[in-house]
């Protein structure tokens, strides 16, 4: 059942985006248990199967980071610092637990800081391996079963295979809805703007999975119904980066004379485009998806074939998206102190440019204070695309 006066479709997304956490707060009052998490690598299916509501902790580009600096070094990724800052400032006071994956140094190395400082009733680190070979997959499955056992202890009951299978079905349904939503971006001009999509996806991070499915379905219906209301713009842009959990940057590009029609981001295509397969042991499908199917810089994909084939294996999905969504240029948007993506910049840039698609690489600090500088760079990039 949706939240109080949430509205439907884009209105619901707007409300949940602007007042992020409002629905979780309501549910907490109703006695539900809310589990905060960071990053796309927490297997939400397990939390859902346990009867807990996953809630993704987000930062705020408009809020200066202050309290976090009393516990966490400023050399940590600014997004993680902002998430921690928001938590310390009481924005997520409804959390019953926190689950953090071994995603990157900024997340993994701060686990103890989160755990000891927030001091929530439950905390757990999912020690995901970097490799994707068979032994890494088996190890990861064991790690996930440790998580399942740990959650069961906290819940005071077993998490059954049937519950997991149902949770997998729900999360896959949500992913299918996001894919359907992305189809609306393929038209020229797109039927839905990049900023609207970003808002929907961020809103979805903070509500129960059933309500997310309902909200995204409502958005799809509404957008189809309103038809082609967006004006034509000269460039179609794809954004590649780590986690962008606000609309400011996407809005900036769209205000500068382009539509953002595709992405390789979290939340975004990277996170939603792959499904959990139905397997006899549901944990097999979950392990396969999170370790092998989500193509993120944090995961080390073993080299098969020659170097060109290796690049294709790592970045081919970006090339496919450029084609499928008729992209004119790519903005590679990386936060300072981002190790997984920072090391990939030359390779991603040269891979995409080798396909005759121009790339603008921007390093940013997760703060509205940099918007002016970014605007100048984006405008120059769009002029370059326009002159081609």
């Amino acid at each position, binding site marked *: 059942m949706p939240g109080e006066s949430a509205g439907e479709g884009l209105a619901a997304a707007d409300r949940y985006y602007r007042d992020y956490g409002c629905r979780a707060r309501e549910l907490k009052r109703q006695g539900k248990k809310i589990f905060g998490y960071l990053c796309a690598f927490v297997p939400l299916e397990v939390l859902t199967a346990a009867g807990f509501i996953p809630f993704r902790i987000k930062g705020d580009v408009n809020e200066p980071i202050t309290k976090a600096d*009393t*516990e*966490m*070094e400023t*050399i*940590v990724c600014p997004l993680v610092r902002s998430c921690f800052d928001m938590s310390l400032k009481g924005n997520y006071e409804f959390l019953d637990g926190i689950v953090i994956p*071994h995603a*990157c*140094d*900024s997340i*993994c*190395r*701060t*686990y*103890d*800081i989160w755990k*000891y*400082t927030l001091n929530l009733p*439950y*905390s*757990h*680190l999912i*020690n995901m*391996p*970097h*490799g994707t*070979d068979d*032994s*890494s997959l*088996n*190890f990861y499955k*064991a790690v996930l079963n*440790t998580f399942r*056992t*740990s959650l069961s*202890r*906290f819940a005071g009951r077993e998490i059954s295979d049937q519950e997991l299978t149902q949770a997998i079905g729900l999360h896959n349904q949500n992913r299918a809805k996001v894919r359907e939503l992305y189809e609306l971006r393929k038209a020229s001009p797109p039927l839905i703007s990049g900023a609207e999509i970003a808002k929907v996806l961020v809103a979805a991070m903070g509500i129960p999975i059933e309500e997310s499915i309902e909200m995204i379905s409502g958005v799809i219906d509404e957008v189809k119904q309103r038809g082609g209301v967006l004006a034509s713009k000269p460039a179609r842009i794809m954004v590649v980066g780590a986690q962008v959990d606000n609309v400011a940057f996407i809005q900036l590009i769209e205000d500068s004379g382009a539509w953002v029609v595709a992405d390789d981001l979290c939340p975004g295509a990277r996170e939603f485009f792959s499904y959990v397969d139905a397997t006899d042991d549901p944990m097999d499908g979950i392990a396969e998806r999170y370790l092998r199917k989500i193509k993120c*810089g*944090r995961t*080390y994909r*073993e*080299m098969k074939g*020659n*170097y060109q084939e*290796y690049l294709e294996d790592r970045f081919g999905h970006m090339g496919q998206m450029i084609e499928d969504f008729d992209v004119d240029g790519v903005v590679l948007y*990386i936060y*300072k*102190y*981002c*190790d*997984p993506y*920072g*090391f*990939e*910049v*030359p*390779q991603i*840039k040269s891979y995409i440019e080798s396909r005759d698609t121009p790339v603008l*690489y921007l*390093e940013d600090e997760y703060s509205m204070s940099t918007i002016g500088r970014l605007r100048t760079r984006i405008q120059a990039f769009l002029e370059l695309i326009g002159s081609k």
Partner: protein
Amino acid sequence: MTEEKKPEERKKRKTAAEAASKIGPMVKATIGGTVQAREEGKPIAYSFICCGYDEIIRAMDIVPVWTENYAGICAVKRDAQRFLERAEAENFSRSLCTYALCGLGFDAWREELGEMPPNPPWGGQARPDMMLGSGQMLCDPRNKWYQAAQHYMPDVPVYEVGLPWTPYEDDYDYREVQDYYVKYMVEQLRGLVEFLERQTGRKMDWDRLSELVDLADRTWNLIWEAYELRRAIPTPMGTGDAMNTMVPMVFMMGTQEGYDFYKDLYDELQRKIANKEGVIPDEKYRLIWGGGLPSWFALTDFNYFNSKGAVFPVETTYRMVEAIYHFDIDLTKITDPLEHLAWRWLKYWTYWYDKSKRRPGSHPDVERLIQYIEDYKIDGIVMHEAFSCRTWHVGLIWQLNLLKKIYRDIPSLILESDIVDISSYNEADTRARIDAFIDTLEAVKSRGR
């Protein structure tokens, strides 16, 4: 192309321990040896220090190029900036690990020229035949750096070895899960052996590997025993020297030369203690280097501390061993060398877990600090936050806060700079902060008198 710049001339840092003064020539010979090995066609592997499988590399007669070490040498020689700038020109962010940036800048330049960049420190970094990544629970550069280096050396294969350890958690004991961690590590190490066999055309000599594993075990014990001698008052060796004496620990494990070095160090420290010969004659303050890698270009800061009457009898940085006879399992009974390596690795990283569980609200990293503070009679803590490294420099503030909460308030100082990038360092500011810290130590001491 980056302009060649002449490095700033530096005077050699004064060491207290004779053993420490041998390190410079040893490292120079090692790096020169890798360049020579390249010319002789010996198999060369880029490798990370404290990788956990040194003995495998040694048993197969592969010549390791310790890439972090080479970046550190460039920093010590104050000749890293041109390589950092080259990496930046390649679109690598300056906020990334500057060991990696220095190495990547060097590689990009060497591959462009087809030869070493001009006047490379100590002969340069030899082109590898393979690169051995290391996926642990820390240090993203260990699985990203060599992958990124393939952009310049697409013909050089990378092998990634997963060696995780069990997290410290409240909701389960690490022993519940340790078996599947060891099983995974053994599989990963076996995969490494197979990879090296394919690359070199050689077969692993398993008996030799077992011998080297045993040699490394004995070296671990010897290092632990030697470093424990530093509890003496006055302490016979400080952290400044330990930043030298760590070299055989992290670059020569599984070699007789490494073992012999620590035997000499042990003997030297015993001799100094017998003669009451300390780093400085009159110790006023005993400090712990409680976290962070040092600024390799500013090791003379340790001498500056000494000039103020402060010594560092102990550090957590680069103390990458424990006495294996203190582990809760008998490693000597584990005869399979890969299994042995895996258990040693896991028991090292979980060594402080049990002790931490016994103190409410504690954490292994903090428990280790407490133990050292007590064992080495410590008056204050100094840490270093290197801006480019999240591996060792995140959690320092929190550790100090927790220490104060569960143990006691103890004077502390966090210096801020980098490991390689000298542009982040200001000597006058650093020394002003050290002076202020010394004043605090003195004030605390005075109150206790």
